[in-house]
């Protein structure tokens, strides 16, 4: 018989802290899910529509009640509209994050953000050339300004195409053109989706879904890709770096500051303030041994990838980390920050700080970061965190941290392979590595915490599939110990041999959730090297514990880019079997890839391996019967 905590998470730190939170009588995300049960079936099936004020409407899936909304939309249209708006929201979130980074780049170029700088000049020049910006003999800041302007153009409608979409293989771009889903502008596709789903516009469920793919592509090959590339330019392109993970990274005798959210613009400045000698000295004066900066979720991943900053946990750990009583300050930016956090923190001594002009939270102090004040504000906040150290009560840090290695940008992976993707292609051709799988996405309390990620990843690597991961999935796999060189012991013989020779783990941490585009770039590089399409390669994607609209956009751009993608939780589409059938099989004939939904990671592993072997067979490589 499992205890409640064991039913909720597979992680030791999670289980122990859940027990403590229960004793402390502090509510968590799992309690709120239970309180919401049963959840509305109309909404779960995508059959409720509240787009206009003739409604809200719902369609009876049993056929007895209404079969059309007031406007006349049937189940197919309503499900497709709802899914389209989820994609639009996800694409908007990622792309707005990208825009924020481009704005910092522009301000750096204009000399208005003195504490930020161009860290990777080589990458700046490379991307600038991609955008047709003249780089020969020009000043760095001049190039940066012109690149920022060129990227800002991508958000509008003037250009009509996205520069970085040209990284996709020619065959893929031809498919996009043929089907009419080549992305034309980052904001344009999101805006058009909101237009199409307004009452009385696009009522073709197929055309709505196809535009959904285009909208997702504007995120994957647009907004998110800009976010990743500009982050690398400003803060450095990640290279393999060791780090520590799980709640054990908090320190009893140091000032613990946790950054949570997604955008490195804030967390990088906090990190620099924490490292300053003045602050460390102040912490010592206050009786602490030092300042311990740790991360949560994707802003944590950004710091982990570039600097090896320790990682306290993923999405479902964000409340529990405060329950340790050891966090002096949590500084958040945006996305995936549960509004419960502000109410929970006063149960302990943790100070909660929100920093973004577009993200406010009840019970948090709002201290707004802008490029011109960021460094000074970061120092002020770190000072206040240090001053909060003596308010600390009892602490509970029940586990030891686990080592992991992060920082596998595409540049780093190609570097580890000796400068060309050829050794990876050779290993796949020889069958030592059967294929590669991106295990990505969030946590969702509906799936036992980390069970989906860790089980799927384990099954894949033991069957010689290389796993690359990002976001909360990447943190789950790091906590499970899959990200050290010795983890090859979990891998099958072929993968073990290849990773062993290269000295890399069998699971490669590729970054935050916007960094899923690194996986696209890698897939495109492999396809281009072989002169095939991405959909011809033995690749797959999986989001075993997804919850967010961003994940819907990510899944959709994976599929639209030719990558078979298996979702864990069921998206709200079962109200229309037409939509279900198109997404899970019909899309194969349109764009050469489709979705599957399988909550059980054991079964998802079989689906993925079967797909990989089928792709191998089609390429004329050795193939197994799964």
């Amino acid at each position: 018989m499992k205890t409640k905590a064991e039913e909720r998470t597979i992680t030791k730190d999670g289980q122990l802290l859940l027990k403590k939170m229960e004793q402390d009588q502090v509510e968590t995300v799992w309690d709120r899910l239970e309180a919401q049960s049963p959840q509305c079936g109309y909404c779960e099936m995508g059959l409720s529509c509240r787009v206009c004020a003739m409604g809200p409407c719902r369609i009876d899936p049993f056929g007895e009640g209404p079969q059309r909304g007031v406007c006349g939309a049937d189940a197919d249209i309503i499900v497709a509209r709802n899914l389209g708006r989820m994609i639009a929201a996800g694409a908007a979130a990622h792309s707005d994050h990208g825009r924020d980074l481009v704005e910092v780049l522009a301000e750096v170029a204009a000399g208005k953000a003195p504490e930020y700088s161009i860290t990777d000049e080589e990458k700046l020049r490379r991307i600038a050339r991609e955008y047709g910006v003249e780089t020969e003999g020009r000043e760095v800041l001049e190039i940066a300004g012109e690149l920022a302007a060129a990227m800002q153009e991508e958000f509008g409608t003037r250009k009509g195409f996205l520069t970085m979409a040209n990284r996709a293989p020619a065959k893929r771009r031809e498919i996009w053109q043929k089907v009419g889903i080549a992305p034309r502008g980052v904001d344009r596709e999101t805006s058009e989706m909101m237009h199409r789903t307004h009452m009385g516009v696009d009522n073709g469920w197929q055309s709505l879904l196809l535009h959904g793919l285009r909208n997702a592509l504007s995120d994957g090959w647009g907004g998110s890709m800009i976010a990743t590339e500009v982050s690398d330019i400003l803060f450095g392109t990640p290279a393999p770096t060791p780090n520590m993970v799980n709640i054990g990274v908090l320190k009893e005798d140091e000032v613990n500051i946790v950054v949570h959210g997604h955008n490195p613009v804030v967390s990088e400045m906090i990190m620099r303030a924490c490292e300053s000698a003045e602050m460390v000295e102040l912490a010592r004066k206050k009786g602490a041994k030092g300042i311990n900066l740790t991360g949560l979720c994707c802003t944590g991943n950004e710091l982990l990838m570039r600097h090896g900053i320790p990682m306290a946990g993923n999405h479902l750990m964000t409340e529990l980390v405060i329950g340790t009583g050891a966090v002096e300050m949590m500084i958040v930016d945006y996305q995936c920050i549960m509004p419960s956090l502000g109410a929970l923190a006063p149960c302990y001594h943790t100070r909660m700080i929100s920093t973004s002009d577009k993200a406010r939270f009840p019970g948090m102090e709002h201290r707004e970061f802008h490029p011109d004040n960021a460094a000074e504000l970061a120092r002020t906040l770190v000072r206040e965190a240090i001053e909060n150290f003596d308010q600390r009560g009892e602490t509970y840090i029940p586990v030891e941290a686990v080592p992991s290695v992060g920082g596998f940008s595409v540049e780093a992976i190609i570097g580890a392979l000796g400068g060309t993707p050829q050794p990876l292609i050779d290993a796949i051709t020889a069958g030592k590595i059967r294929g590669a799988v991106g295990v990505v996405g969030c946590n969702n309390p509906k799936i036992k915490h980390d069970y989906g990620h860790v089980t799927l990843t384990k099954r894949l690597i033991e069957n010689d599939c290389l796993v690359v991961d990002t976001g909360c999935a990447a943190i789950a796999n790091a906590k499970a110990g899959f990200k050290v060189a010795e983890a090859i012991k979990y891998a099958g013989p072929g993968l073990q041999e290849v990773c062993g020779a290269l000295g890399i783990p069998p699971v490669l941490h590729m970054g935050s959730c916007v960094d899923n585009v690194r996986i696209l770039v890698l897939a495109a590089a492999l396809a281009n090297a072989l002169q095939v399409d991405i959909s011809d390669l033995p690749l797959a994607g999986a989001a075993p514990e997804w919850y967010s609209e961003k994940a819907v956009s990510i899944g959709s751009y994976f599929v639209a880019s030719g990558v078979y993608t298996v979702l864990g939780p069921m998206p709200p589409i079962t109200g229309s079997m037409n939509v279900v059938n198109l997404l899970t099989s019909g899309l194969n004939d349109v764009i050469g890839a489709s979705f599957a939904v399988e909550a059980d990671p054991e079964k998802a592993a079989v689906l993925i391996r079967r797909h990989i072997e089928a792709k191998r067979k089609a390429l004329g490589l050795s193939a197994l019967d799964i």
Partner: protein
Amino acid sequence: MKQVQVHPERCLGCMQCMLACATAHSRTKSLFTAVGESPLPKPRLHVGAGSHDEGFPNRCRHCDPAPCLLACLPGAIFRDPDTGTVLVDPDLCINCASCAMACPFGVLRYHQDWVAPAAKIVAQKCDNCLERQHEGLIPACVEVCKTGALTFEESDEALRRKTREVARSVSMGMEEQPLIPTGVQLLRQAKKQRFEMRCR
């Protein structure tokens, strides 16, 4: 006589019946104004969650004999002779909870109500929306249930209909007419799987 029939396999757990019930028992009879009333009106039926997060509309069965009625010490619970509805007289109720202890279905609640003496906490339960029925309306929970999980009909008719549905679902040689549509089945399988995985 028409009664509220419950068909739990059709419940989607949307809880619209609860909102409609509370509104029907409010002073102002409109959701928008009911939420501002004091005491706040509350529903008489409750949607519970099954072991796989499936909805179940739990409603008074108006049992006969009714354990709550038999257990009621001050004689506040009585049966309406015309409709068989089991009702509570708020003036006589002493808030002793004997009815709740006797009720096998857990449908009783105790709170203030605008028709009860001011500030008095009394037993509350489904009244079959008799007030609405007198106005020619059907019970509020049935009116808003679009899937047919709650119907207002003769029980014989409901059972005959069910027999026909079951017969069609197993008839040979014809295109199958599953009792539960494919999309609903897909969702329920996914939810069941989720709960089974927790015990691993």
